Structures are given as C-alpha cells and as structure tokens.
C-alpha cells in the first residue's frame, strides 16, 4: 500500500511538471496538440493524487501502522470519522491533502474552461501545475506521507485529542479550500500577464472562483474562532496567534481584491492595483502554510517537523518575485482607462477602503513577523501580544466600517456634497439614536459606544439600499413588496449579495465589539453545595459525575444555574476530558449555558463555564465568563455565507443557452461564468 501510494505521488509530480511545460511551450509555439496533451497531464495528476489520498485514507481505516504517518496520527481505538480526518491531522498528510485540493481546482478549471478563454487557459493550467509541482516535490523528497517504519507497531500513537471533534474535522479542509482557492484567480492573473490579454476577461472568468475562495477563507477564520471558543476553553475566540493571523491576512487582501475588481469592471481603473492585490493574496496564503509548517514563529498551531521551511521560503521567493516581474513587464499596458474624477466618488471610496484593508494587513503582518525582525536585529525574540493587535487594528476596522457605509451611498464618478448630506441624514440619525439608547442602557465605554452606533449607521445605509430599491420597483411595476424585493436582488445579484454580506459583517462587528468591551470573568473554588455569582447568575456546585469508556475519562462538574430572581434555569456541565492515548493533554470541555426560559442566554450573552481543576477532595475550581453578543459573530457568518451565495449564484439573466460543442458562439452570448 505504502509503495503504491508513493509511486502515485511520484507519477503525479512527473505529470504536473509535464503539464506545466507542455501547456507553456504549446501555447508559446502555437501547438494545440501539445497544449491538449498538457491538459491531459493536468487530469492525470489530479487522478493520481486522488488515488494517493484514497490509499492513505484506506491505510488509516485498516490500521496499516507500518506507514509512519498512520502510526503517528491514529490508533486502533479511534472512531471511523476521526480515522478519516487523521488524513490532515499531521504534517505530511495535510500537505498531501492540500496538494490534492490544488489538483482538483486545476482539474476543474482546465476542464470547465476547455472551450473558453483559449488565450488564457493554457497559461492558467501551466501556472496551477507549477504551483502543484512545488507541493509534489515536497511530498516526494521531504515529507513523504507513505514513509514506512522498519517494524510494525502494535498500535498507533493516536490523533491529538484537540483535533478529535467535529469542528476540527471541518476546519482544516475548509481553510485549505480557501487558501488553495486563491490560486485560481492568481493563476488567471498570471495567465493574463503571460498572454498579454489584459482586459477584464480574467477578472470575469475568476469572479466566482474568487468568491468561493473568499467564502472558505471567511468560514475558516470564523469556524477557527468558534472552534477555539467552544473547544479550547479559555473564554475567547481570537487570540491573535500567528497562525490565526496568517489565515486572516489573505482574507483581508482578498476582500480588498473583491472590491477593487468592481472598480476595474465598472470603470477600467486600478488594474495594476488588482494585480498587486491578487499576487499579495496568493503569497500570503502560501505564507500562512509556511508559518504553520516551518516553525519560524512559535504558535499553538505549528507542526513539530520543520525541515521544509527553506523549501517553502524558496517557493515564496520564486512566486512572489516571479509574479512581480511578470507584472512589471506589462505595467504600461495596465494603464487605467479613466482617471479618478473626484474625491467624492465611489471609485475614491473603494480606493480608500482598499488602502485601509492594506493598512490592516500591514499592521497585522508586522506584528506577526516582529519576533523574527527583533531576533534578526537585536538577537532577542520579542513577541507582540494581543494588546498591540487590538490597539492597531481597532481604529482601522472602525474606519473600514465607516467607509463601507459611505461607499454604499456615494455614486460612481462624482457626487455633490449636498446630495450626499441628504442621503446621509437618515442613517446618521439612526446611528445617533442608537448611541443615545445604548447610553441609556448602560453602554458607556466610548469605543464600544462609537463602534456599535457605527454598526447601526452602516446597517441603516444597507437596509435603506434594499428599501429604496424595493420601493422604486413597487411604484414602477406595481409588484407586491416581497416580489419587488426578490426581483431587485435577482436583477443585480453581485451587488445585493454584497450588501447582504455587509449586513453579516456588521452583525459580526457588533458581536466582536460587545464581547471585547463587556466580557466579565469570575473564578471560584467550590465544594459541594457552595455557590458563585456572576453577571446576574448564581451557580451552585452539586458535585462531580464521571464517565469512562475505552478512549477517555470525562469528569463533569454539575452546576445548577439560577437567575437573579432565584429561578432555576437548568444544569450546566463543564468538564475535563482525559484521552488515554495522550494523557499529557487533558481537554477542557467548556459549557456554554443556554436556557429557553432565559432569552438573554439565547440572544444577548453567553454564560461560559470552565472546569479548571477537579481536586480528589471533591472541590471544583471553576471559571465563569459572561461573553456578550458572541452569538452575533456566528450569526453574522451565516448571513455572510448567504450573501456570498447570492452574489455567486448564476444570474437569471444569464441562464445558459446550450450551444452544441464546436458550434460558433452567437455574438454577445454570455461568456460570464
């Protein structure tokens, strides 16, 4: 099995290298047959990698402990689901998984566009194959997931218990889809530079791919946060850990890119800028993988092996400098079609938004690599903590929120101040009213007050866009409001989908502000019958209960929860979990208490309970948090998914007309995908 797997990887490497060479040369020399054979090699690499992945999964399922990776990342006592997810539980396997996803993207793009974009596609396939070759070289020479042990252990070491939960089963693949997904727009951009076809064609071709990758990155960031919140048990969802930051960085530049391409599509401006953003996004995604795998920055996420750091760095150098040189070659051809006409215009607002996103990227990147910088300059590793990131990024994100509101209001090309003031009146009043109400409700911290009322302002702008559009349609066509709203969205899905995303972001922003500004914390050591108090809840400790199976031992603290009127709300059960395979890592199972009868636990705040320690004498050390509005972050993420789906959904107006293959396309037929 191991040999077969390794052979598949070696052959996949050969195919990918051939695909890259054949597509490049074939296209350069105008030999369609060579290009076609390169295309087949792309498919071959995809097939071989699929085979390798299936073989490794199979090895996990049959406990083939002769394979080192299987022995080190699974054991006989693991449930089947986690045996499968062990595939990406360690270094070599996750690298294989990453490469496989990349090969699937390459295969999909090469197949779906086989008859379209004839000038771009061979280059796109070539660039994707080059990227794939790099990972395959790593797999073949430096991190072979099919490496054999000289003996067959009786049992494996087991998967890190932190990774044994449903969230962790989904989180890495999802994040990888995002990281790897940005390869597609990047590859198209490089293809545009290589071929000299620099119109907005590559942007249109990749719009959905970019949205898809961006969606997965968004999900990666939020699911990662939610996982940390629910599983790690420290009461927070974002720790500014270098690896978390690394997943956030391409999201930031990706978001900027999504906005700047709108300007290119509408006004033919910001072309160089787009290229820079997508180059940056791709390389930041690779940088994220590099940080996790090289051990260059200490992080809770790091894999222990670090031998592939230099190879990764070499690839970053190659792809970054290579992409930039390609861009410089075409720099003059990427001149904008228009100049910025007025400072008060949508174009300018987009540019400002882009600069702010880039500012946030730079600040976070700076904090991320500061330990390396300080070590290089002063010989001491100085780590930058959460306070730095919070202080630097909070104002930038506030500014982004405000620009988001203004940007939706301002018109393309130019806007007069008086009309802007007119349209600002409503939303700004809403913000002010919100500030007053919040003040009366006891929200007195200036940053929280400012942030939350800004959210209301931007929310009002967004809702007004929907309201006015629907109203206008209703008046014009006499459609009922619900129909008018639906048709409004259907008529311009990218725009209104984007606005829905904005609503999600606003909700999440409010959640972040609320939980950051108003978290409460209490800790107590309780004997049976003793109670502690936090934020209007009374928690009475009723002793431990224990659960044991062949895999683990679970110690639960039983807590009766009462509200401040003394009404019984229910039982909370924070727990400690000991996996026998990894006794060094006891797990904290936080309990986020919810009671139907107490609406604030459903909508406004989390009562978050952790069992810190259980003493043999029967006392429990408990930590309790009140985390306001955390739920809103997850709800925001759901709305964001919905909005992205609306924006990416094939539009009714471009319902596909089936054209027989080979038939000439009618002029003006939709080429958008």
């Amino acid at each position: 099995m191991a040999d077969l797997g390794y052979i598949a990887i070696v052959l996949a490497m050969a195919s990918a290298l051939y695909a890259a060479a054949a597509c490049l040369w074939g296209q350069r020399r105008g030999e369609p047959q060579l290009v076609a054979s390169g295309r087949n090699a792309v498919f071959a690499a995809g097939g071989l990698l699929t085979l390798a992945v299936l073989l490794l999964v199979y090895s996990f399922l049959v406990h083939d402990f002769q394979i080192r990776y299987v022995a080190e990342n699974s054991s006989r006592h693991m449930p089947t689901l986690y045996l499968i997810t062990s595939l990406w539980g360690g270094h070599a396997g996750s690298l294989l998984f990453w490469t496989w996803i990349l090969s699937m993207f390459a295969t999909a793009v090469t197949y779906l566009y086989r008859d379209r974009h004839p000038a771009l596609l061979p280059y796109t396939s070539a660039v994707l194959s080059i990227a794939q070759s790099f990972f395959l070289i790593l797999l073949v020479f430096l991190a072979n997931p099919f490496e054999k042990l000289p003996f067959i252990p009786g049992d494996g070491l087991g998967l890190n218990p932190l990774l044994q939960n449903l969230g962790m089963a989904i989180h890495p693949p999802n994040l990888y889809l995002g990281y790897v997904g940005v390869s597609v727009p990047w590859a198209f951009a490089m293809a545009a530079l290589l071929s000299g076809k620099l119109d907005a064609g590559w942007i249109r071709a990749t719009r959905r791919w970019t949205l898809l990758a961006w969606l997965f990155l968004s999900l990666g960031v939020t699911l990662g946060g939610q996982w940390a919140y629910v599983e790690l048990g420290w009461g927070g969802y974002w720790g500014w850990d270098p690896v978390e930051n690394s997943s956030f960085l391409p999201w930031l530049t990706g978001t900027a890119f999504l906005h700047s391409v709108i300007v290119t599509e509408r006004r033919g401006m910001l072309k160089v800028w787009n290229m820079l953003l997508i180059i940056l996004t791709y390389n930041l995604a690779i940088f994220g993988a590099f940080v996790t795998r090289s051990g260059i920055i200490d992080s809770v996420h790091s894999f222990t092996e670090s031998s592939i750091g230099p190879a990764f760095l070499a690839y970053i150098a190659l792809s970054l400098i290579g992409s930039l040189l390609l861009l410089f070659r075409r720099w003059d051809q990427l001149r904008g079609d228009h100049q910025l006409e007025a400072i008060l215009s949508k174009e300018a607002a987009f540019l400002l938004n882009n600069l702010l996103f880039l500012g946030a990227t730079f600040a976070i990147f700076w904090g991320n690599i500061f330990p390396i910088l300080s070590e290089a300059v002063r010989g001491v590793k100085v780590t930058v903590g959460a306070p730095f990131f919070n202080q630097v990024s909070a104002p930038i994100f506030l500014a982004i929120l405000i620009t988001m509101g203004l940007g939706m209001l301002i018109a393309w090309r130019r806007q007069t101040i008086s009309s802007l003031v007119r349209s600002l009146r409503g939303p700004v009043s809403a913000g002010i009213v919100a500030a007053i109400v919040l003040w009366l409700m006891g929200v007195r911290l200036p940053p929280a007050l400012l942030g939350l009322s800004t959210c209301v302002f931007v929310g009002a702008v967004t809702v007004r866009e929907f309201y006015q559009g629907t109203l206008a349609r209703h008046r014009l066509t006499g459609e009922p409001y619900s129909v008018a709203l639906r048709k409004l969205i259907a008529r311009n899905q990218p725009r209104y989908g984007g606005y829905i995303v904005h609503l999600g972001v606003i909700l999440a922003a409010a959640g972040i502000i609320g939980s950051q500004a108003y978290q409460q914390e209490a800790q107590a050591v309780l004997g049976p019958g003793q109670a502690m108090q936090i934020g209007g809840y009374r928690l009475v400790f009723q002793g431990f209960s224990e659960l044991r199976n062949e895999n683990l031992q679970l110690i639960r603290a039983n807590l009766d929860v009462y509200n401040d009127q003394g009404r019984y709300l229910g039982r909370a059960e924070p727990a400690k979990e000991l996996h026998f395979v990894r006794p060094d890592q006891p797990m904290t199972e936080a309990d986020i208490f919810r009671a139907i009868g107490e609406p604030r636990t459903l909508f406004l705040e989390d009562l978050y309970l952790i069992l810190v320690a259980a003493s043999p004498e029967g006392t429990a050390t408990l930590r309790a948090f009140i985390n306001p509005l955390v739920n809103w972050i997850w709800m925001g993420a759901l709305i964001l998914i919905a909005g992205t789906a609306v924006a990416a959904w094939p539009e009714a107006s471009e319902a596909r007309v089936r054209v027989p293959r080979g038939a000439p396309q009618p002029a003006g037929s939709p080429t958008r995908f």
Partner: protein
Amino acid sequence: MVATSPWVRPRTLAQGLILALAAGLITLLALGLSARAPKAIVGNPAPEFELELFDGGVVRLSALRGNVVVINFWASWCGPCRDEAPILVDAWHAYRDRGVVFIGIDYVDTEPEAHAFMQEFAVDYPNGPDKGQRIARQYQITGVPETFFIDRQGRVAAHYPLPLTRHLLISNIELLLTA
C-alpha cells in the same frame, strides 16, 4: 504611472519600492529560518555531557556510542514523572541486555527527595543530578518529564516533551534497535 518626471520615472520608483520590499521580506524570513535552524535537536548529534551519578560513578554520553540511549529528565516533585517511573524501570529491565542504556537526569531537585523517589520506584539505571542545569540547557528542555532517544550513531532520533506511555517507549526503542 501618470506623468513622467525628469529625474526618476514614478513607474521605476514604484517597481523598485515593491521589489525592495519583497526582497527585504524574503531576506528577513530567511534570517528567521536560519536563526531557528541550529536549534533543532532531533536529527542532530546529541549534545555531549558528563553526568556525575548519585552512586558516585560518572557517565559520559560519547562513551555509550554504539548503544541505543534513552535520556530521561525527571524530578521528584514532578507528578507525571511518578506515573512514568515504573514504565521506565520495566523497559530498562527488559532491554538492558540488548544494547540499550537508560540515563536518568534529575532536574532541579534536592538529593534526599530524589533518593526517596528512586527507592520508591526501584530505579536502578544510571542516574545523577543535573548540576547547574547545564545538560537541561544543552537539550533545551521546557519541563519535566522529557525524554530523548539517541540512536547507535549518537544522533538524537526522537524527543518527547511529555510523559511516555509504555507503548511510546517500547516502540521507539524497537525502532532504533532495528534501524
């Protein structure tokens, strides 16, 4: 990109800046990697040390070349070390005649407590105090217990900064014996 100035074209300036930034960044990351590189313990020759044993002898790591060596850092005050001690002793008895040497290194401890610990668990492989924590520093341990497996060529084959399970200990020894 817009107008051409007589001195430096803005285009050249922008491109130069971007390239310089990219190159600087890559250099920085390379520096970071190289600063990190010599720190790797696993895969490199095991740092040499001389340990004065509790029973008066001296053990020198290089003198054990040709054997598989298991170096265990422990302390009498360390809870997990108590769980680990019987496992280590059992394995030592099972493998002492097969070219495997165990060395216990007592980290930040007091001698009477260390003796009591060793008596309690009948620890009879070479053991000694790490005076001035020199060896601990050479091996960059972050706590106790930690265990290093040294192969017959004197290289560190594996490092576990955690209490060993029976299975982990045995499979590592077997791995090095068959290598």
